[in-house]
């Protein structure tokens, strides 16, 4: 197996298992806006299956014991590929779950952080979050550079 093939397979392993972990975590936390299937149970089962299938696919035909001097991945490359694979899994999960659950309503005003994704999707919540963040940055710069105008 060439180094490129191993790197490609490793990226795919990380991507699939990360998608799986995100589904299991979403099912456990009841983050409905992150489900890829309709219910917590089916999303959890999908996640667990993805993890098991990806690990079996990666390791069972070949234990992949390759030195990094002979095409294996050294620690730094593994860390970089893991970051890329897990980020891609998060992005795909956020986009797909937003499409699958597009019927969910807008975010509740009181909901903060991940908890908002119990009743809405990421793409519905994001504009609200960005507006809020932008307002806070403006307030902070106003306060830091021009002094408080409150009174």
């Amino acid at each position, binding site marked *: 197996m060439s180094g490129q093939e191993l790197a490609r397979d*490793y990226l795919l*392993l*990380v991507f699939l*298992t*990360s998608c799986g*972990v*995100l589904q*299991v*975590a*979403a099912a*456990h*936390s*009841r*983050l409905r806006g*992150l489900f890829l299937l309709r219910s917590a149970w089916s999303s959890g089962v999908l996640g667990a299956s993805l*993890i098991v299938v990806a*690990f079996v696919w*990666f*390791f069972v035909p070949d*234990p*992949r*014991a*390759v*030195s*990094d*001097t*002979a095409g*294996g*991945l050294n*620690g730094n490359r*593994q*860390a970089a590929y*893991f970051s890329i694979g*897990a980020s891609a899994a998060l992005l795909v999960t956020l986009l797909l779950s937003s499409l699958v659950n597009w019927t969910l309503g807008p975010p509740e005003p009181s909901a*903060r*952080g*991940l*908890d*908002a*994704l119990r009743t809405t999707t*990421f793409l519905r*919540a*994001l504009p609200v*979050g*960005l507006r*809020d*963040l932008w307002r*806070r940055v403006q307030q902070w710069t106003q306060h830091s550079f021009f002094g408080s105008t409150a009174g």
Partner: protein
Amino acid sequence: MDAAFVLWLNGWVGRSPWLDTIAKIVAGDYLVPVALSLMLLGMWFGVRDPRRREGQQKAVGAAMAGMGFANLANLLLNRVYFRPRPFVHLDLHLLFYRPTDSSFPANPAVVGFALAWGIWLGDRRLGTLAFLLALAWSIARIYAGVIYPTDMLGGAAIGIAVTSLVALAFRLLEPLPTVVLRAAQRLFLA
């Protein structure tokens, strides 16, 4: 003592093909680090209680930074001290490729225990599982004939010590970690 333990454990190689295959996979460079990193991902998203979640997410940050700094410490230590691998001096049945870097401290122990300690700081139950995985990774390497038990102990001590220091630094850097988490919360990512 160190060599005697490696010889005893490695003496089991070849008696059970199943055990050898499992040891090859566990001792490898990919299974345990991926599993531990996935635990961190799960810790970030998988907590129902918002008050507990923030603590766990800070522990995830400490574990990741701890692993990075522990690796750096390992790299620096390898420049000043080199210990030959057990297969250089002992007659062993190798189950693994022949690493050329120093046997002490064991890289898997440094990385595995740095991550496991960070996970344990956030979630005791998951942390215990992480410690078992880190331990299995190191023991599989001893079984495979590529490290000594003291390499594992040294690596574990470095990993745990560095992650503890990073966790302490996170506390001293407050409110910066909280501000970063709050920004991520506003984007519904934490």
